[in-house]
């Protein structure tokens, strides 16, 4: 298993993430409906909105798992935020970065993974909207477009969060 390298802008990235004041907050319908929509649209058992904290990945919204966070060292999303585009892993067992990852070999049984980085206007990638399946598969161009759109909608909601947090008191 390969642990993802730490992004060069990690300190700045964590500052932006913590400024959202969203970590460890309760579920919210505006995020839940996006993961539920994605699960139906792509016919996948697990969809997550992950936010990558210093030592963990925390799930703001989730379908298909009761787990609310995992260690960052085993996170596939920590690899996905290293690139601007969507990271697709058609079969984790065929990928040396992930074949012996506990998320692949354990209860979550991640066999297919597609993670769209949640890039804010600053360019900082705070987490992902990710799809997980228990069988190998891939996404065509239109499906990648749809996943990109749903990611954009998550980012819009995060930006709203940011705007609320920064609003002066009335």
């Amino acid at each position: 298993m390969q642990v993802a390298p730490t992004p060069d802008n990690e300190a700045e990235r964590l500052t932006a993430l913590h400024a959202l004041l969203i970590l460890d907050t309760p579920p919210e319908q505006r995020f839940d409906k996006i993961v539920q929509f994605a699960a139906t649209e792509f016919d996948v058992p697990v969809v997550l909105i992950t936010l990558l904290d210093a030592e963990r990945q925390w799930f703001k919204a989730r379908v298909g798992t009761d787990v609310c966070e995992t260690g960052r060292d085993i996170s596939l999303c920590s690899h996905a935020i290293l690139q601007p585009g969507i990271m697709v892993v058609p079969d984790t067992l065929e990928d040396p970065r992930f074949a012996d990852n506990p998320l692949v070999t354990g209860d979550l049984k991640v066999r297919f993974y597609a993670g769209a980085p949640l890039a804010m206007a600053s360019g900082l990638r705070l987490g992902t909207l990710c799809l997980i399946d228990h069988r190998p598969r891939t996404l065509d161009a239109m499906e990648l477009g749809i996943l990109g759109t749903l990611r954009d909608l998550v980012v819009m909601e995060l930006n709203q969060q940011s705007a609320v947090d920064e609003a002066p008191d009335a």
Partner: protein
Amino acid sequence: MPDMHILLVEPEALLRRTVSMTARSLGMSQVHEAATTGVAMRMVRQRRFNGAVIAVECVGSGTERRYDLSLIDELRAADAPGGRPMPIAILADQATPTLLAELRDRRISRVILKPFRAKVLLETIAGFGGGSKGSGGDTPPNPFKS
């Protein structure tokens, strides 16, 4: 982006937004969104469209319950006489024989049944563009598609 203007009438905002934003990002066409038939009616009176995807609403109650097809009639009234009819796809909860007969009379290109998926809607919109080349349009293809 092709100069195609598509009308999408769908009450579910997330589905509507996903289709319109993805169509734009993939350079397919410009999708104009309407949440209700009433809003769509106003849009139809203000501009011409190259195709439409319409979730038909049920109106009335009991034995008087029926699908409101007035928007389709409005669009069909705007078709050029003798020309190719505008491609129209319908979103419906179920396809009753009565509804299908009414849709056939209105030369509907396709019927999409629940659960509605953005990809199916986008493929339908993409098909509108492809169908404009060399299609006489007098004999619509088998429209039934879930």
